[in-house]
């Protein structure tokens, strides 16, 4: 099978070179047949890569240990999900996954645009094929995932690193790769536009959605990485300015800048060189980021290791990209001339321009900081490094300026605003900003710099966006005669990019809100003897001992901590260390988190002594951190709305306002209702029945106890009391009943455990505490919804772009542009 895989990779490489050459020749000779042949070959690459992926996945699933890659990244006891994720667990496979994704995205983009952007397609095919060729060459010549052992192959694999055997790690890399790889599509269209000279705005329209889509996945990947660091690695925080994190952040900055400046080009035909440059730079940064993390140029916790050969290949490729792309830009400069000039610095395009500069500055700065150790070593011979505080010092003002622009931009009109007509616009947002500043600084005693200012700006931006929504809806309601709410839905539906964008901004505000919470972060390390307690913030934490358990796959050491507030026990925390078989040297930390909207109480088990039951702990209080995740959910929702096809929301635009309103309200009702039922389902664990043998725990404490005690019936394979729900399992019924009775008597954790030990003898019924499986699922919910909606929307977008050849769709952009202008002018009249 391995030789089949290698053969497929070779075949893909040959097909790529064929597609690239034949497309360019076809375009030069204007030969339809050659171009079609190139496109055909391009689709074929996709098929070949799918087959190659199938071969690799098959090797993982069947445990084909003659292949080195399979040996290094899997073993036979791994769950199937992680056998699948082993595909991209290592360097070779991740490159292959890259090619696989790029071939799919490329084929999709070409298929969707093959009629509308006929003149660009051959060069798009050639560009994407060339990029694919580079990565395929890497694999064929240097990093073949199908390399086999020359001598006897081992009988068992080494297993995937336990840190990677984690749900977030299963979806974090593919999401980031989707974002990275997706950025190749705008680049290919940009290059095609440069080569053909079709530099009007049509190529921008082809790539806008792709950029948004890739941007969404990049953001999603970054967020997942943050969650992984926070919940699995036990950093106590979520961002450490690690080079690999930075690598993913760099293209995010430039892509964000592009999403904004593209609007200026559409509206005012300015910034055309700038936009092409941003697309090129974004693509370059994705390659550069891959280079940084894969070649060992920078030191990092999760770099893949030194590889000078790979580094040289990558450097060569990057030089080619830069010279070729910017050579094209310089050659086409005359065609890229702006048709308008900046009229005034008090205009929306100026705000966009400043936003772009700041974004680009942020990207350059992070790049500089990340490369600083390497640079300083090359220049002075001494390796100097910069740490987190340095980045924070610089990026805090950058972030605040961006946040401010988010609020100011929408208040300025295109072309020019005069001070007298924007002053009233600023009234309410400024009031909101001052009010939140007063609340934060005056009431909560938060220092002005930087958190207090951040809260003030958050208030200001929310004020601006609220005002935008209100004014737009009010105008629309007056013009269409509908009620305010229908008008609001109609407004968003009519102008999805604009109002979707505002919703994204609300998400950003929430994320900044969460970041600002860092000002009140508490972080302590301590050693607690059995029964001793410590104070952090308002919490008192008491050590109730350590327990060791083994479930066959891993050894679990768990600390039992009780949390008190004002002398009352409110919760328990169960941080643990797990040691997987064959990875005993690399224990994974299982963080215990007590989440509330206001703050997280976070505990990491750093060390323990089974003999005297003492534990070493890191305890962190992280204020507002959950708003970051919620903010991302809202961001995803906003992006989803902006990506929606033009025709959706039709119901809200219907001619009959009364019915439309009814539909909207009904729909909203359904949404709220379904939201409500999920919520109550989540709380259903605490249902009000007072039956003692009930399946369900009636309060969190009882639930926790059910999870700690294992059913002794012997038939269910040591399930906990919360899990053993077989109808005929009288034992678990009885045990749950006993437990419920004890809870009712007001016995505490230790008394119940002691009573159970006394009654059933031995400690066999003590399970490992599962303190988070459920709450985690609940927290995953918002972003799962966001991601699903985004994917659904992506499909819809693809479907929509396909139908756009229909004549009816043609006037749509004109219409929306007109609408927006009217909107603007109406507002200026106000």
């Amino acid at each position, binding site marked *: 099978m391995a030789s089949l895989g290698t053969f497929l990779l070779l075949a893909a490489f040959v097909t790529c070179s064929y597609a690239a050459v034949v497309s360019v020749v076809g375009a030069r000779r204007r030969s339809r047949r050659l171009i079609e042949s190139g496109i055909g070959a391009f689709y074929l690459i996709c098929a070949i890569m799918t087959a190659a992926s199938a071969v690799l996945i098959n090797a993982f699933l069947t445990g084909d240990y003659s292949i080195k890659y399979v040996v290094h990244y899997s073993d036979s006891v791994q769950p199937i999900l992680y056998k699948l994720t082993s595909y991209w667990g290592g360097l070779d496979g991740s490159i292959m996954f890259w090619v696989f994704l790029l071939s799919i995205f490329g084929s999709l983009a070409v298929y969707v645009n093959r009629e509308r952007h006929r003149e660009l397609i051959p060069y798009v095919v050639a560009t994407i094929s060339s990029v694919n060729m580079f990565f395929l060459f890497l694999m064929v010549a240097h990093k073949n995932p199908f390399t086999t052992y020359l001598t006897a192959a081992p009988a068992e694999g080494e297993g995937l690193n336990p*840190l990677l055997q984690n749900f977030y790690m299963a979806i974090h890399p593919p999401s980031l790769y989707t974002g990275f790889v997706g950025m190749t599509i705008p680049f290919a269209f940009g290059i095609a536009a440069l080569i053909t000279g079709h530099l009007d705005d049509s190529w921008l329209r082809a790539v806008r959605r792709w950029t948004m889509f890739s941007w969404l996945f990049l953001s999603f990947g970054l967020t997942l990485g943050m969650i992984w660091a926070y919940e699995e690695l036990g950093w106590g925080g979520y961002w450490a300015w690690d080079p690999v994190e930075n690598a993913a952040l760099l293209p995010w900055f430039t892509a964000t800048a592009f999403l904004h400046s593209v609007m200026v080009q559409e509206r005012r035909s300015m910034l055309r060189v700038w936009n092409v440059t941003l697309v090129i730079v974004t693509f370059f940064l994705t390659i550069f980021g891959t280079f940084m993390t894969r070649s060992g140029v920078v030191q990092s916790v999760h770099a893949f*290791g030194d590889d000078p050969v790979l580094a040289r290949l990558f450097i060569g490729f990057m030089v080619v990209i830069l010279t070729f792309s910017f050579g094209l830009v310089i050659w086409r400069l005359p065609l890229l001339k702006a048709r308008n000039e900046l009229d005034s610095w008090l205009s929306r395009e100026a705000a966009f321009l400043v936003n772009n500069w700041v974004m680009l500055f942020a990207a350059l700065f992070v790049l500089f900081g990340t490369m600083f150790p390497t640079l300083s070593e090359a220049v002075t011979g001494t390796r100097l490094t*910069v740490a987190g505080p340095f980045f924070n010092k610089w990026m805090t003002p950058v972030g605040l300026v961006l946040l401010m622009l988010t609020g100011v931009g929408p208040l300025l009109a295109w072309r020019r605003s005069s001070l007298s007509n924007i002053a009233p616009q600023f009234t309410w947002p400024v009031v909101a900003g001052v009010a939140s500043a007063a609340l934060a600084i005056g009431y909560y005693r938060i220092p002005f710099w930087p958190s207090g200012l951040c809260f003030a700006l958050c208030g200001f931006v929310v004020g601006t966006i609220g005002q935008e929504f209100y004014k737009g809806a009010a105008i629309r309601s007056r013009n269409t005669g509908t009620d305010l709410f229908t008008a609001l839905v109609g407004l968003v539906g009519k102008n999805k990019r604009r109002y979707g964008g505002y919703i994204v901004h609300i998400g950003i505000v929430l994320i900044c809100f969460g970041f600002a919470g860092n000002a009140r972060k508490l972080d302590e*390390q301590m050693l607690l003897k059995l029964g001793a307690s410590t104070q952090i913030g308002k919490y008192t934490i008491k050590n109730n001992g350590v327990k060791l358990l083994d479930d066959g796959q891993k050894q679990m050491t768990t600390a039992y901590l009780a949390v008190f507030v004002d002398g009352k026990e409110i919760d328990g925390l169960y941080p643990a260390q797990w040691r997987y078989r064959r990875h005993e040297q690399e*224990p994974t930390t299982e963080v215990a988190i007590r989440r509330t909207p206001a703050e997280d109480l976070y505990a990491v088990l*750093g060390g323990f002594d089974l003999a005297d039951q003492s534990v070493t702990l*890191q305890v962190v209080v992280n204020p507002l951190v959950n708003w970051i995740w919620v903010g991302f959910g809202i961001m995803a929702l906003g992006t989803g709305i902006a990506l929606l096809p033009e025709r959706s929301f039709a119901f809200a635009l219907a001619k009959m306002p009364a019915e439309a309103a009814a539909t909207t309200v009904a729909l909203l009702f359904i949404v709220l209702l379904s939201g409500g039922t999920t919520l109550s389902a989540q709380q259903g664990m605490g249902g009000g029945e007072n039956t003692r043998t009930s399946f369900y725990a009636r309060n969190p404490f009882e639930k926790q106890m059910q999870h700690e005690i294992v059913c002794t019936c012997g038939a269910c394979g040591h399930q906990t009391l919360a899990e053993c729900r077989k109808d005929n399992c009288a034992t678990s019924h009885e045990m749950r009943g006993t437990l419920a009775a004890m809870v009712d008597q007001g016995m505490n954790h230790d008394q119940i455990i002691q009573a159970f030990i006394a009654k059933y003898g031995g400690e066999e019924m003590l399970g490992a505490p599962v303190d988070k499986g459920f709450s985690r699922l609940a927290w995953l919910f918002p972003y799962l919804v966001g991601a699903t909606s985004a994917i659904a929307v992506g499909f819809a977008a693809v479907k929509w772009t396909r139908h756009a050849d229909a004549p009816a769709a043609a006037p749509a952009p004109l219409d929306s542009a007109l609408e927006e202008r009217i909107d603007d002018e109406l507002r200026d009249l106000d």
Partner: protein
Amino acid sequence: MTHRYIKLGLTAAVLVLAFAGLMWSTLQDGTEYFKHVDEVMTNPQAWEGKPLQLHGYVVPGSILKRQDTLEYKFKVQNNPIRDVNQGHVVEASYTGIVPDTFKGEAEVVLRGKLTTSGFHTEPNGVVAKCPSKYQEKASAGS
């Protein structure tokens, strides 16, 4: 026209200078020297008090922990343990939680300052590198 360019040039120059000045001043207290034990210990006086990231290997059996505290004392040598020659050795101290990978023979980077009584590691300043974490170096070279 030329007038405009002069204005633009001046603005750019001022911005660049201001930026460079800010960068310089923050870099001054933001940077740390990445040094191997040998480089520092051949001339320890020169490095005392400077922010350092010290690279070395933990001498096996040298880790001492004071009972019921999080205070550690250990020795770090320049060369990997399998080398016959140790290279220079420095005494180091640390208070806090150590990573699981921190043990004898481990490759470590310590963030902190050199004092006359040894290397004083700052809180959370121990990074123990585990070469097999993502890819074993041995297998990368094939």
